[in-house]
């Protein structure tokens, strides 16, 4: 990972890192990438990726309406709210 890639990933991850944090992450990422090279020595030709370790399909419940968490309970954790909605900064001028 080079510095430009890190800046790109930082934007994707919605983070704003300090220069010290960037240096620390670049150092660790370098070590991690070196360790990942072991994987290329393992033959995975014709192996299907393992998506779930459960040996069953998801057990879905009946589609029945049930009492759930109220709007008030959900909004009570919001940093800012207005008229029964989450409040966010303007995205359009």
């Amino acid at each position, binding site marked *: 990972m080079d510095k430009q890639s890190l800046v790109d*990933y930082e934007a994707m991850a919605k983070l704003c890192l300090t220069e010290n944090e960037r240096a620390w992450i670049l150092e660790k990422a370098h070590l991690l990438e070196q360790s990942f090279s072991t994987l290329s020595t393992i033959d995975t030709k014709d192996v299907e990726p*393992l998506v779930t370790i459960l040996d069953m399909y998801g057990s879905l419940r009946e589609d029945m309406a049930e009492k759930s968490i109220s709007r008030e309970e959900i909004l009570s954790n919001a940093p800012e709210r207005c008229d029964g909605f989450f409040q966010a900064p303007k995205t359009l001028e």
Partner: protein
Amino acid sequence: MKFALDNSIMVKGKIAASGSRILSNFHAPFSATAYSKLKNAGMEYYGYTRPDEFGVAPLFCDKPGEIAEAVRCVADGRCDVALGNDVFGKLRRQAPENGLFYIHPTYGTVSRFGLIPAISSMDQIGLVCRSLDDGFAALSIIAGHDKNDATTYPQADYSYSPQPGNLRIAVPDNVMQLADEKSRQAILAFTGVFESESFELKYFNALHQVQYILGCAEICNNTNRYDGIKFGYRTSEFSGLNELYSKTRAEGFGPDMKLASIMGCMVLSREHYDSLYLKAMKIRRLVKQQCDELFSRYDAIALPTSIEDRDEYEQSALYALATLAGLPSVSIPCMKDDTRCGVQDGGPGGRSSIQYGAQDGGRNVLNGGIQLIAQSKNEGALLSVCRGGL
């Protein structure tokens, strides 16, 4: 029995910070199934313990890790069992180091409803306990299907009893060569009382990489929800939506979560998806296939709880096998003077030797730890091995 919870396991109305500033003001809107079941069974709730951020042990911290609160809480007698989520093996290593057990149940047998997610395909509520009886008693209460968690098996409840018959234990040669002396001696003495056989654990050198790659990808996705708008911490000064997101998350997450998020973006990027993420998922299948094959011949695999001269990241390979394959495991402490693995019969006050180790804080009596892994939903084999060996 008295129980504690890592505060990644929600109790309605209480702050469930999951060890993170980003959730430092988050009040749980409902209780986790595991908590409700223990309360309904009449167990006394001691309180919360603080986990590492999102239960993800720091693998790249320059300072030695502190003892987990869940471990301290049981070791000093404040509670009998402590529930936590142990993906990278911190609790599985620290519990035996402090004279305690850790039970890591089969993935899909204990509901994750109300557990704040970190690495969903590997998150599993497990138990730090002073005795296996306490631990399995609590596990039998919390295990079972939960309609609120579609990844729980349909079986309504589980009772854990030793598996009858002769037990066959597999000991991986290639891992034993890396184990520290105490663990190696403990395993050899412990497995000596069983029919045991050596084998080579394939892919061992890739386990921690596979776990980290898949873990970062899932952390990256699971932590996207923390945006400073719907719940949790919000930065105090920002200009516009993007700055709100990035400053909130930068101030809210610790260094290991930031590293995991960045690495998650990397392994999921177009450039690295096939060579890292997809490759890791394929190796995960190979690991599971090897485990299935091994458990057609053996009842349990014995692994050390630490490797000599390896950092935390590399040590996590020891715990990745059970986590990646969704298998149950028990980490057990071993004492010095035992003829089998160091466990003596009878400690102070007539308590068992394992309780003795815990009461003494593990000082001067411990002789390494052993991790036993069994086939999916076969915790009974682990109990049998522990009963036979202890």
